[in-house]
């Protein structure tokens, strides 16, 4: 028997505090939200706040720091390794995201057609996404090995090249190689999400357009793309965020080498903070990623999502 029914059985008494809480909409709502709020505060707000705070201190592992204002950031601005890592991160994110979007959309469009063994292919496409990142990174590590690369081996056997390709040893090659690995891993997410979006487009629109004599390019340009754009915005926001904060792939493949040519802000932050013991500086590097991430989010929301029809207007 609940308290509420118990209260009804005692008509003479005034509703107790508990009853009022139990029946009041606002109080009950607050109570139901409390676990989520505590969870967010404890596991998101607090660590984030702590990270931001650490960025303003000279904390080292094993020693609490003192507030030093913007000194970490001033030091970073004159640190060419940090500046290089910012450049690398932006290059990595921009190139990988564009490739992932283009290839992912292409793949989604193909999978949306009537193919034999459609379900099988859709499942296969997900594989790179399902494999744990570290495992696929180790596989790529072998693929890119300076001596034992399967690609080099195959090309040498074919007689196309004489010496193994220096995948991870040359700055340009190394950047291209890690981007390729990241793209391979990220395509399924984009492709499957966009495929889901494609399937929500009513076939009647395409049929009507076909009857009106629209070419397939026109149908793609004026039906598919506009209908898909909200999904694209969300998917690409996530994709950019994942890429920007990538760590495992780089750490396994190069640790930021050769000569820091593939050091991302995330890997540099770790290198400085944990093995280097400079928690404050590491935190400052991590915090320095936030403006970029916010920028990416704002861009996708305001740039890609502002469509009239999304706000209930006609299109």
């Amino acid at each position, binding site marked *: 028997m609940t308290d509420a029914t118990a209260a009804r059985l005692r008509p003479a008494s005034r509703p107790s505090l508990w009853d009022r809480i139990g029946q009041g909409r606002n109080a009950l709502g607050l109570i139901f939200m409390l676990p989520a709020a505590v969870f967010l505060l404890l596991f998101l707000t607090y660590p984030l706040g702590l990270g931001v705070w650490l960025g303003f201190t000279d904390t080292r*592992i*094993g*020693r609490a720091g003192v507030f030093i204002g913007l000194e970490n950031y001033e030091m970073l601005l004159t*640190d060419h390794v940090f500046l290089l890592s910012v450049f690398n991160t932006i290059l990595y994110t921009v190139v990988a995201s564009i490739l992932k979007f283009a290839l992912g959309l292409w793949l989604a469009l193909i999978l949306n057609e009537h193919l034999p063994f459609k379900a099988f292919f859709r499942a296969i496409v997900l594989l790179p996404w399902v494999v744990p990142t570290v495992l696929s990174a180790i596989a790529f590590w072998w693929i890119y090995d300076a001596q034992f690369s399967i690609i080099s081996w195959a090309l040498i056997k074919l007689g196309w090249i004489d010496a193994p390709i*220096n995948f991870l040893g040359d700055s340009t090659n*190394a950047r291209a190689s890690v981007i390729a690995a990241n793209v391979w891993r990220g395509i399924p997410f984009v492709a499957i999400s966009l495929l889901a979006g494609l399937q929500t487009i009513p076939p009647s629109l395409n049929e009507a357009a076909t009857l009106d004599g629209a070419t397939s390019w026109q149908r793609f340009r004026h039906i598919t793309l506009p209908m898909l754009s909200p999904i694209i915005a969300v998917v690409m926001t996530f994709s950019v965020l994942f890429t920007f904060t990538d760590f495992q792939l780089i750490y396994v493949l*190069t640790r930021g080498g050769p000569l820091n040519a593939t050091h991302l802000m995330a890997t540099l932050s770790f290198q*400085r903070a*944990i093995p280097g*013991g400079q928690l404050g500086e590491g935190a400052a590097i991590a915090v320095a990623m936030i403006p970029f991430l916010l920028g990416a989010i704002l861009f996708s929301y305001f740039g890609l999502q502002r469509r009239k029809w999304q706000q209930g207007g006609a299109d």
Partner: protein
Amino acid sequence: MTISRRDMLLGTAGLAAAGAAGGLVTPAFAQAAPKYTPEKGASLRLLRWSPFVKGDEDQWIANSKKFTEKTGVEVRIDKESWEDIRPKAAVAANVGSGPDIMLVWFDDAHQYPDKLLDVSELANDLGKRYGGWYPGLEGYAKRDGKFIGLPLAAIGNAICYRESAMKEAGWSAFPTKTDDFLELCKALKAKGKPAGFAHGKAVGDGNNYAHWILWSHGAQMVDEKGKVVINSPETIKALNYARELYKTFIPGTESWLDVNNNRAFLAGEISLTANGVSLYYAAKNDPKLADMAKDIKTAQLPIGPVGKAVELHQTTSAVVFKYTKYPKAAMAYLQFMWEQDQMQAWIKESSAYCCQPLKAFANNPVWTSDPNHAPYAKASETLRPNGYAGPLGYASAATMADYVVVDMVAEAATGQRTPEEAAKRAEQRANRYYRV
């Protein structure tokens, strides 16, 4: 290195009459040692790095068991991958709870010296009775005249090469000077059996090689006061040498991490590299590589213009945290583990991977059991602390963790920058950590 009679007499001054005559350490000396009686109901937790050779772990556990049998103190041994030791130890020191004893790397102990138990009494006694600590190892464990840790071992690094390739290149004995070494590498390259050293972010191999380049030419990161002096004519000379040497390497060493040289060597792609003894054992323990194992020889890294062998190697020490509830038990445990019977057995079972911290243990049979072990026996002797000649601490640790020396050598060697530019950049980077 053998212990001189003088060392022995000094070390055992009070007991000289008791039997120093043979110069051997007999149980009689143990009586001079400080006595630690474990607290009642004591138990210990030790966190160590995951062993590289199985014998090391087995013997360590066996020794600990003996301690438990003798004293009734349970010792729980946990292990962590070696790269995780540094943050774990720092956090334990900071938070004030965790394992009682930890085996840590390099200058870790200097990052939180006030959180560590002073083990000077024990260390001085061990030093006295066993011929003294090797200075390099001692430097890592001592701060302001006090031992904040007990030196445990140097993980040696040495040249591993294929004898057949060397002979084919026209050399009958392995060169001991850097100039001759360069000639050998050139000849090896001409024969299509090049050398290869890690120029990538290889924590162990990369740092060992880069520091050897630097130190063998008399260059150093900082002076005694911690002032950065890397941008020096010696460094330029060292980097020019590295550049010449790099030209003889197999392509792709810029991307090499710690295992790449092992892989390339075992596959026969390179005929010369530097590594721990594990490389030799990888070939020896593989029946398919029996022929190669017979062809593998080891040698000390060549001596440069500085005129003596100086190398980084890897170092590990044992530290006791001040927060331990059973400091006496911890001291008793360390004392027991470092005594001749246990320590010698452990060094032996570590198959030349771990080089003794005390000079008296240099006669360990492991060093003569295989000629290939001999170069590794010198590790403790040639070892020079990281961040030489400055003080150890945050700056030295952070400079190594940021690969400042590795990057400098790689930049200059690969021709990405001139030696002058590379040295200047290293100076800037090091100054960020060594700033006052």
